[in-house]
């Protein structure tokens, strides 16, 4: 097991959650250190989305405790420190907004939603656009972009507040290989240049598998938490279809492995 970090950006202690009689999360614990690149993987229905909603402060845990930068998610004052990219671009097909306007919306958390943007806000928005290689498309209507490009717009939107923790929910589901590579480059750029921690929530890892520092496997509880190499040493490649992964790990722990 991992040793606790000194100043974790995110810590989850003994969190449980059930929808009626159906237990979704059981005694889940997790800590993320500054600058760490972690993937939270697990099959559909494993409780990833529920855990994510609890971490974002959209849902309260029934037992246990969550701290984002040392305060409870609902009370976190500096919301800009948390960047969030939702599962799919749920952009209305008739949305009149430009790429730049969507990304600028992500800057509101840092500047204050009622304030007018200043020069440093515009610079941050431009920088976020360039880090996902969309600077030239900034005046385009966002709905005219491909699915992969829209995904990168939403990542730039999350980057615009210069977050210290970026949470991405299923960012590569249904995105083609080239878009996955561009996405990977954006993430690596973010990790190196901003020193932000990244938590990637996914049921597959695709092109980012090689860059990970840590993998947490969740199926209602944490089944594995460690270096990808340790997971690979047990014979599982993260490139394989990850739906099989937690089941395999469970068998492994039953046989005295892990």
């Amino acid at each position: 097991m991992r040793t606790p970090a000194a100043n974790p950006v995110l810590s989850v202690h003994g969190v449980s959650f059930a929808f009626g009689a159906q237990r979704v999360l059981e005694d889940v614990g997790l800590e993320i250190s500054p600058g760490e690149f972690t993937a939270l993987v697990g099959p559909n229905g494993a409780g990833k989305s529920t855990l994510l909603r609890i971490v974002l402060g959209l849902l309260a845990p029934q037992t246990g405790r969550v701290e984002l930068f040392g305060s409870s998610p609902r009370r976190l004052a500096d919301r800009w420190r948390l960047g969030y990219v939702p599962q799919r671009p749920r952009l209305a097909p008739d949305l009149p907004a430009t790429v730049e306007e969507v990304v600028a919306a992500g800057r509101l958390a840092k500047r204050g939603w009622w304030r007018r943007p200043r020069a440093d806000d515009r610079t941050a928005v431009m920088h976020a656009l360039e880090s996902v290689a969309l600077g030239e498309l900034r005046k385009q209507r966002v709905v005219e972009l491909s699915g992969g490009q829209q995904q990168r717009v939403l990542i730039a939107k999350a980057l615009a507040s210069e977050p210290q923790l970026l949470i991405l929910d299923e960012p590569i589901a249904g995105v083609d290989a080239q878009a996955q590579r561009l996405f990977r480059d954006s993430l690596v750029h973010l990790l190196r240049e901003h020193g932000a921690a990244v938590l990637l929530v996914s049921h597959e890892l695709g092109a980012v598998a090689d860059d990970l520092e840590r993998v947490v496997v969740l199926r209602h509880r944490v089944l594995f938490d460690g270096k990808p190499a340790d997971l690979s040493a047990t014979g599982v490649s993260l490139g394989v279809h990850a739906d099989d992964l937690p089941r395999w790990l469970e068998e492994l722990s039953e046989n005295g492995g892990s």
Partner: protein
Amino acid sequence: MPGMPWSLPWPFDTTYMQLALVAGVAVGVSAPLIGTFLVQKRLSLIGDGIGHVAVAGVGAGLLFGTSPVWTALVVAVVAALALEWLRSRGRTSGDLALALFFYGGIAAGVVLAGRSTTNANLQPYLFGSILTVTENDVYTVLGLGALIVLAIAITWRALVAVSLDEESARAAGIPVGALNALLAALTAVTVAAAMRVTGVLLIAALMVLPVATSRVVARSFRATILGAAVVGVVAVVLGLAAARQWALAAGGAIVLATLALFAAASIAAPLRRGRAPEDAATLLSGPE
């Protein structure tokens, strides 16, 4: 011309037309500002619904001898906040709750106005009577219009963020619930402001149709908002001119002018981009 220090060419060369112009422009600017966000939230008809509820306020004002604009404002704001509360909790499925509000409102208005002993009638508030507005009416409309413009000037960026994705906006600490309530309340303020211009039954048209027109040509959210306000003002000027020229009902003429502008934009924009005009239904429903 009391209160009007300038002289204007036809059709605004008389005092009553100038008062109508000022009140009409205030509503022509402010109604589409609210409408832009209502259209984006798929609430295009909410203005119509709140207009129906406001009739109860008009009826109460006529019955108790107070200004119907202010009683309608109070009733409309309360109803708008209640509707938003129901909507945010997902309790308006099947539009049944909305129907209860709307028809309850208009029925109560008719009954209350019928009990009134004065000669007052609902007609000017249902369909507007912009050519009979007084200076006091104009100050009221200007005040309400200024409130709407100021509120949107401060909150529009946050409202854009909310219409992009409510969940992300919440996670970013934007007060989504309060902004939705504000938008609902401002919709009610627009209804009250527009009561003497287009009437409560036609106000939704002035909120929504300029936005539909602006979306045909605008390339950004900001341009959509500003363009809608411009279309609103042009429609008011055209509608008032037509009303003067041919002795038409001014409220209806203004709304027909917004429709004419929408038709013109729908035909002209694709031609300018070098392709055949799409049919209006496609334009209304967006590119997909």
